[in-house]
C-alpha cells in the first residue's frame, strides 16, 4: 500500500517536472539565445574588427584604445555625456517627483482628476512619431506666432539653439508622466484605507498624509523608478531620433541617441565593434552607480514597519 502511494507520488512528481520543463523550455531557450547569446556575442565583438560582409578578425584591445583616442579628439562624447546627465537630473527631478505629486492628486480624486489623468496618460498611448510631429508644429509653428504677439520674437522653441535642448527635456518629462502615474497610483491604491482614516482622525493635512504616509508606503515603487533611471542614464535617447532622425546637431546628442543612431545607420556593421567596446565601458561606469543608488535608497528609505 505504502509502495503504491510512493509510486503514485513519484509518478506525479515526474509528471509535474515534465510539465514545468515544457512550460519553461521556450522562455529559457529564448533567454539563452536572445539575451545570453546576443550579449556574449556583443562582448566578443568588442575585441574584433570588421573586414567585410560577415567577416570579423580579432583585434585585441584596439577598439578600447581607439575609443579613448576619440574621447580626447572629438567634442561629441563630452557633449553627449553632459546632455545625458542633464536629462537624468531633469528627468528625475521633474518627471519622477512631479509624477509623484500628480499621482497623489489623481489618487485623492482632486478637481477634474479624470481630465488630468487622460491628459497626462495620453502621450503614452499616442505613437511617439505622431506626438513628435505635433510637438514640432507647436514648438516651431504655433509658439513663434503666439510669443510674437506678446512681443517675444523667437524662431521657435526647437529652432532657437538656446532653447532646443530645454524643449526636448520638457517634451520628455511631459511624456514620461503616463507610466509613472500608472505605477504610483497603482501603488497608492494598495495602501489600506484604514491608515488614511486613522490619519484623518488625527487631523493630518494632505501634506502630512503625503509625506508621512503615502510616500513612505510607496517608497519601493519610487526607488525602483529611481534605480531604473540611474541604470538608463546612458541608454536614454530622449526621443531625439524621433525629432531629428539621424541628423541631430551635436549640441543635442545624448549617449543613448549616439549609440542608437550609430547602430541603425545603413550598412553600419563596421561600426559595431567600436560600439560594443563603448557599451562595455558604459556598463562599467553605470554598474557601480546603480548599486550605490540601490544601497543609499535602502539606507535612507523608511523601515517596512
Amino acid at each position, binding site marked *: 500500500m505504502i509502495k503504491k502511494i510512493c509510486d503514485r507520488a513519484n509518478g506525479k512528481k515526474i509528471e509535474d517536472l515534465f510539465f514545468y520543463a515544457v512550460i519553461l523550455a521556450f522562455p529559457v531557450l529564448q533567454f539563452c539565445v536572445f539575451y545570453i547569446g546576443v550579449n556574449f556575442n556583443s562582448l566578443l565583438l568588442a575585441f574584433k574588427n570588421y573586414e567585410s560582409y560577415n567577416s570579423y578578425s580579432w583585434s585585441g584591445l584596439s577598439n578600447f584604445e581607439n575609443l579613448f583616442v576619440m574621447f580626447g*579628439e572629438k*567634442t561629441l562624447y563630452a557633449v553627449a555625456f553632459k546632455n545625458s546627465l542633464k536629462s537624468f537630473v531633469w528627468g528625475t527631478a521633474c518627471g519622477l517627483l512631479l509624477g509623484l505629486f500628480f499621482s497623489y492628486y489623481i489618487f485623492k480624486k482632486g478637481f477634474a482628476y479624470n481630465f488630468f489623468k487622460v491628459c497626462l496618460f495620453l502621450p503614452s498611448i499616442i505613437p511617439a512619431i505622431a506626438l513628435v510631429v505635433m510637438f514640432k508644429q507647436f514648438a*516651431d*509653428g504655433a509658439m513663434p506666432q503666439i510669443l510674437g504677439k506678446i512681443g517675444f520674437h523667437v524662431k521657435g522653441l526647437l*529652432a532657437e539653439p538656446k532653447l532646443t535642448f530645454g524643449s526636448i527635456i520638457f517634451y520628455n518629462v511631459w511624456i514620461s508622466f503616463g507610466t509613472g502615474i500608472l505605477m504610483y497610483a497603482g501603488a497608492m491604491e494598495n495602501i489600506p484605507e484604514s491608515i488614511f482614516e486613522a490619519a484623518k482622525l488625527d487631523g493630518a493635512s494632505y501634506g502630512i498624509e503625503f509625506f508621512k504616509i503615502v510616500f513612505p508606503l510607496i517608497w519601493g515603487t519610487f526607488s525602483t523608478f529611481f534605480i531604473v533611471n540611474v541604470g538608463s542614464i546612458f541608454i536614454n535617447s530622449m526621443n531625439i531620433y524621433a525629432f531629428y532622425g539621424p541628423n541631430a*546637431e551635436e549640441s543635442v546628442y545624448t549617449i543613448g541617441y549616439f549609440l542608437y543612431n550609430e547602430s541603425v*545607420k545603413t*550598412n553600419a556593421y*563596421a561600426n559595431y565593434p567600436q560600439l560594443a567596446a563603448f557599451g562595455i565601458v558604459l556598463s562599467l561606469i553605470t554598474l557601480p552607480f546603480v548599486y550605490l543608488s540601490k544601497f543609499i535608497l535602502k539606507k535612507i528609505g523608511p523601515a517596512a514597519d
Partner: protein
Amino acid sequence: MKRKTEKKLISAACAVFIAFSASSCAGRNPGGETLNKDMTQLNIGVFEGGLGSDWVYALKKSFEEKYADVSFEPNKKGVQLQVSESKSFSGTFGTEGTVNMSQDVIFAEGAAMLYCAERGDFLDISDIVKAPLDYDFVRKNTADGGESATIESKLSDNQKAYYSALDNKYYALPTAETYMGIAYDIELFEENNLFFAPDGTFVKSAADQRSSGPDGDPDTEWDNGLPATYAQFYTLCAKIKQLGMIPVMWGGALQEMVSFLLLSLEADYAGSEQMYLNYDYNGVLKNQILSFGKDCLPVTGGSVNISAANGYELYKQDAKYYALKFLEGIIKNGYYNVKNGTSSSFTHQDAEDVFVSAKYNTKLQRAAMLVDGNWWQSEAKGVFNEWEAEKGECASLQNRKFGMMALPKADESKTGNMTLLTYQGHIGVINSHIEDYKINLAKSFLQYCYTEKALRTYTLMTNICRPVTYSMGDDYNKLSSHGKICCDLHVGANKVSMESSSKINRNYNTEIWYAPNLWTSTVGGTTYKFPSTAMINSGISAEDYFLGLSGYWTKGVWNGTFRNV
C-alpha cells in the same frame, strides 16, 4: 443588468467592425489591383518615395501584352504585374535582406548594393546586361526588329566597374539619375525679367537676348541668361528680394538638402576626377587650401596622394571652401527664407508646396528658387494636381515652367560645362529568393525597363532620366520644362557618381556619401553638422567653417572612424 447588456452589445459591435476591417484587408493585394488567378503574378517592388511607381504602371500594359499567350505555371496563362511600394526597399533591406520579401523585381533607393549582393540578396543578372536587348529570355529567341544594343553598352565605364565589382558579375542596374540642386521658377524669371543679358545687366523683356550662362556656351539654351558666377547669383538674389520675394527657399526641417547642394557645388567646382576622390580614395588631390592670406583669399597649392588612410586631407580641398562661400553669401545677405529656414515644422514638402502654390495663393510669399532634388516635381505631384483642378491645365505639372538651374561658378575663370554629382543606391534588382519558374520572366521585365522605349517612358513619367545612355527622340517635346532641362543636363553635363567599390566605401557607405556626415566641422570647441544652421544661428563664416572641417577630421579621428580600410 441593463449596463451589462449595453457592454455586451458594444463589444459585439466592435468585434464585427474589426472582423470586417480585417476581411477587407485580406481581400486586397498590395497594388490595389484585383488578383487574376488565371495569370502568373510578377511582383514589382518600388521604393515609396518621391519618384513613385507611375512609371511601372506605364510599362505594365505593354509588358503584359508581350507575354499574354505564354504559360509560366500549370493552368495559368499570361503575366500580371503586381506593383507595391515600400520604404523597406532601401539601405540593406533590413537585417534579413530580401529573403522574406515577396517582390520578384525591386527598384530600390539609397541601397547598399555591394553589401546586399555579397549577402546573396540579389540574383546574378549578368546575362541580361550583356545580351542584346532584342533577346527574349522567356522565349529564348531573338525578336525581329528589336534593339540589338546591350544594356552594358548603355553604361559608363565607371558604372560597369561598380556594378560588376563582385566577381565580375552584375547584380544590379542603376535606375535613376538624381542630384541635388536649385530648382527655379521660369515663369517668375520671365515675368520679372530676371535673366541676364550678354552685357551682364538684366534683360528688359522675355524676348531679349540672354547671356551664355555658367557654361559660357550660347548654343546650350537651357542655361542661357542664368547667373554665370556667384557674384551674378547674388545680384539676382538682391533683385528678387527687392521685388518682395524669397530668392532661395529650403525646408527648415531638412537641412541635409542644403548640405547636399553644397556637395553639388563642390563637384561642379572640382570636376569629376577630383570629386570622385571623395568616394574612391584613390588618386592625387590637387589644389589643397594651404592657408588664408591677409585678404582672406585662400592660398592653394601642392598635391597629395590620397588613399583611404589619409582621406582627411580631402577636407582641405578648395572646392569645399567655395561651396561654403556660396552659402555664406546667401545667408549673410538674407537671401533665403529667413522666417522658416531653420524651423523644424517647415518641411521640404511644405517648401515645395509654397514654391508651386504661391503663384495662385497670394497669402504666401513667392519664392524664385528652391533647394531640392531633381525629383521634386514627382514629390509635389499632388500639389500640382490640386491647382490643375482649380485653375485648369495651365497650372498642371506639365505646363508650369520650372527647371533645374545650372549652378553658378565661383568666378569667371571657372566658366564651363557643368559637373553633376549623382546619387548612389538607386538600383533595379531581381530578388535572389524568387521562385524558379519566374526567373526568366523577371529578367525579361528588368531588361524591358532598359529598352529605348521604356527608358523614354520612364523619363516622360518622372521627368528625370535613367543614368544610362539613351535618346528621348521626339518624346523630348512632350516633356515639361523641368523634364527637358533634366534631359539636357543628362546629355550635356559631366557626371560624377557617389558609387565606388573601394573598401572604405563598402564598409562605411553611409559615412562616405550621406551629406550630413560630410560637413561636420569643429569651430571654437563646438562641432556643427550643418553649415547652414551654423552660419544662420552662430554666424560662422565660410572660412572658419572650412578650417573647422580639418579641425574635426584630424588624423586620429579619421583613423579611428574608418578602420581597417
